[in-house]
């Protein structure tokens, strides 16, 4: 059984992107270390370095003071390190028991899996969370048939089934209900007594203060703070996670937000519910630029795609006081909706086709039969110059463009339809600074001059603060807080993202 693990000066690149530039973490037996950081600060990469899923590019891992190298998850596992993965490592086609004991199945003397032993030990493990299950969970249930919280529990049981000395809990509580979280924390306390070490990666401040002994804060791939949890409070922790105020190249119109209220309500959403959303309600006025904030994967994508008719939902959506129910993106497009999706390579563009083809894609009907190629060309050229699109020609493939210019094509193809409501899913991700500034100017112009209603999700907090009149912060499929005017600050935004400072959550 190990006593301590420390990661020193860890460096990890993914292609050209630096995920970790100087990651440090130290964990000892009988303690719980909380690993904290904002979006993209390198938390997940850090835990993947410790459990051998990724191979580090620089730095050192020390196990009980001796250098150690994990070329594969198997190596880390042999060293007694178990991981509860954020994106569960379960195989949906297999049963609960098969998943928990995969690679460590008890064998009989003929080399066969001892099913009785597997079943018995699985039942023992399932007993740890006894009474918190919503279904009659049994060892032979298939993973695919379980609700998300029970999958998460199986993932936890799988990690501890080989009695590791170090357990990494990567967002393990995200899909658990309060009873299950309590049970997990009781278990964590017991593991501590047994001499185990725990690395707890979480976004929930309240939980961090409940069970952690120590904290490690990551910011932009660097460890910027570490120490005992008693010596720090929530506010100081959040400050550590935020970078020093940087100067933004654009300014928000000061009094803009007050006069907006007078305008008519363009979009009204009531109690939107589906797989990723738990009762979302809000209103957006005409010509308003409203931001959606929060940590990645808290339902923002679901919200935008639901409004666009791509994901079915229950609840009411009203456009200018008239109820609409989109069953297909086609319906939403007819009513003047446009969606700039988050993954432009997969959802936004046909990379091998020309810029012209991509721009015309949503509006081909207008230029359709008989083909009005020259009209289409003229309009596409106008949109291109409007967006300051840098290209060799309309007939060049989109793959020849840089990230920023490719994103301009995605926006341009919708501008050709003159949409009334623009939904944007993190449009400046992977876009260079110059193009970002152009986007900001464009979005501001579209909302304040052209009266478009814009809903913008961004993983960049500064962007939201600088650009938006109001920001709806999402957490756990719900709107946790609404920030505007004076309350729209970086501290509040990050605090709300982490679900902190308000006691309205179970």
């Amino acid at each position, binding site marked *: 059984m190990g006593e301590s693990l420390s990661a020193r000066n860890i460096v990890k690149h993914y292609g050209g992107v630096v995920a970790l530039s100087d990651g440090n973490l130290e964990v000892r037996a009988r303690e719980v270390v909380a690993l904290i950081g904002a979006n993209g600060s390198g938390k997940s990469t850090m835990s993947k370095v410790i459990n051998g899923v990724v191979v580090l590019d620089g730095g050192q891992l020390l196990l009980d003071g001796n250098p150690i190298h994990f070329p594969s998850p198997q190596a880390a596992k042999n060293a007694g390190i178990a991981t509860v993965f954020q994106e569960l490592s379960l195989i949906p086609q297999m049963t609960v028991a098969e998943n928990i004991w*995969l690679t460590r199945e008890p064998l009989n003397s003929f080399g066969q899996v001892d099913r009785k032993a597997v079943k018995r030990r699985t039942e023992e493990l399932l007993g740890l969370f006894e009474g918190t299950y919503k279904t009659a969970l049994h060892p032979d249930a298939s993973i695919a048939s379980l609700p998300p919280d029970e999958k998460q529990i199986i993932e936890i049981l799988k990690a501890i089934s080989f009695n590791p000395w170090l357990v990494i809990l990567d967002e393990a509580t995200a899909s658990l209900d309060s009873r299950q979280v309590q049970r997990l924390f009781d278990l964590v306390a017991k593991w501590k007594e047994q001499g185990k070490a725990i690395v707890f990666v979480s976004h929930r401040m309240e939980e961090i203060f409940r069970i952690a002994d120590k904290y490690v804060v990551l910011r932009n791939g660097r460890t910027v703070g570490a120490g005992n949890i008693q010596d720090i409070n929530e506010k100081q922790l959040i400050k550590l996670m935020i970078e020093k105020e940087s100067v933004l190249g654009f300014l928000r119109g000061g009094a803009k937000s007050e006069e907006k209220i007078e305008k008519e309500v363009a979009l009204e959403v009531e109690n939107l519910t589906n797989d990723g959303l738990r009762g979302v309600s809000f209103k957006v006025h005409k010509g308003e630029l409203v931001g959606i904030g929060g940590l990645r994967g808290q339902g923002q994508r679901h919200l935008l795609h639901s409004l666009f008719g791509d994901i079915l939902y229950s609840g009411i959506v009203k456009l200018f006081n008239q109820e609409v129910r989109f069953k297909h993106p086609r319906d939403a497009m007819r009513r003047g909706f446009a969606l700039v999706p988050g993954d432009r390579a997969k959802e936004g563009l046909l990379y091998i086709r020309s810029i012209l083809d991509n721009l015309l894609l949503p509006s081909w009907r207008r230029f359709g039969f008989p083909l009005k190629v020259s009209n289409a060309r003229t309009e596409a050229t106008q949109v291109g110059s409007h967006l300051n699109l840098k290209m060799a020609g309309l007939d060049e493939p989109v793959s020849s463009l840089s990230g920023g210019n490719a994103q301009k094509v995605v926006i341009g193809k919708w501008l050709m339809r003159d949409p009334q409501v623009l939904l944007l899913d993190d449009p400046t991700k992977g876009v260079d600074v110059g193009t970002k500034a152009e986007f900001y100017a464009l979005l501001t112009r579209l909302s304040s001059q052209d009266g478009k209603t814009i809903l913008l999700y961004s993983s960049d907090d500064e962007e939201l603060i600088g650009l938006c009149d109001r920001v709806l912060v999402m957490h756990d499929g719900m709107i946790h807080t609404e920030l505007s005017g004076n309350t729209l600050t970086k501290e509040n935004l990050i605090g709300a993202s982490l679900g902190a400072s308000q006691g309205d959550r179970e």
Partner: protein
Amino acid sequence: MNRSRWEVFTRRQPALFALVLLVLAVAINLIVQPHMFARETLNSNMRVFLPLILLAVGQAIVILAGGIDISVGGIASIVNTVLATRVGLEGSPAEMWRYVFISLIIGLLAGAINGFFIAFLRLQPIITTYATSFLYAGLALFILPNPGGGIPGNIAAFYRNSTPLHLPLAFYVIAVVLLIWSYLRSTRYGNFLYAVGGRAQAAYETAVPVTWVQFGTYLISGLMAAFAGLAITMLSGSGNADIGAPMTLNSITAVVIGGNALSGGVGGVAGPVMGAITLGVIQNIISFANIDTWWETLVRAVIIVVALAAPGIVNLFRRRQP
């Protein structure tokens, strides 16, 4: 409740559809060929079906682990040409045994080549085995450019006419294959097959040796293709470099109508065995019903399409329900 019960049922009983299809096919066959279960008829049918059954077993295991092997026909052809040219019509039983052994080594080697490219170099299975299928077919043509050669008549006759306990030899082969499979299924390797085919990334994170599991499936498939080549040589008694090629797609068809998901992780081996027999029976029906051979292609195509579409159609109707 209803939904999950259905899902559990189809997951647990992937071979059910294959069984229904097989019973249906046999019933129709009984109408056109009433003496189907007579010892001689049964034996002659089964020995014709056996090569495809063996290929389907190997293919099923590759597909279970998320791959595909379209070079199996080529491997069977190599084995056929090697046996036909090296043993010859006048060969001794000892010679035969020696080349049977060599054939199996050839099958394993060919499988190892596929497995190396796919598991270690991470190339696309369908492209890789498509390419190697030409390699193997070309090699078979090189060994035996024109049909000819053969194996001793008495050895072929032994294979064709042996009916221990009045049951076709093929039944015993199938029984042995299924026994070995049920053992393999109950070992760790069996679990790994399903894990890798189900979600390779999750399996990797759980420390399953994904590369070796994949490599292993191509070895098995190569070996089964060699057995199939052996069976087909015993059946025909002669050599022909083109003999394996048309069997490749049939082996995939057998796996699919056997209830295994082409995406991997779902199914078994009993289903594909039934699928292969069904394909054979359909061919039998068509030849006995005096239908043009091109109808056979059409009928087979319809069955494949129905088999592929049936689960999707069921799901379509289920989704309609609120």
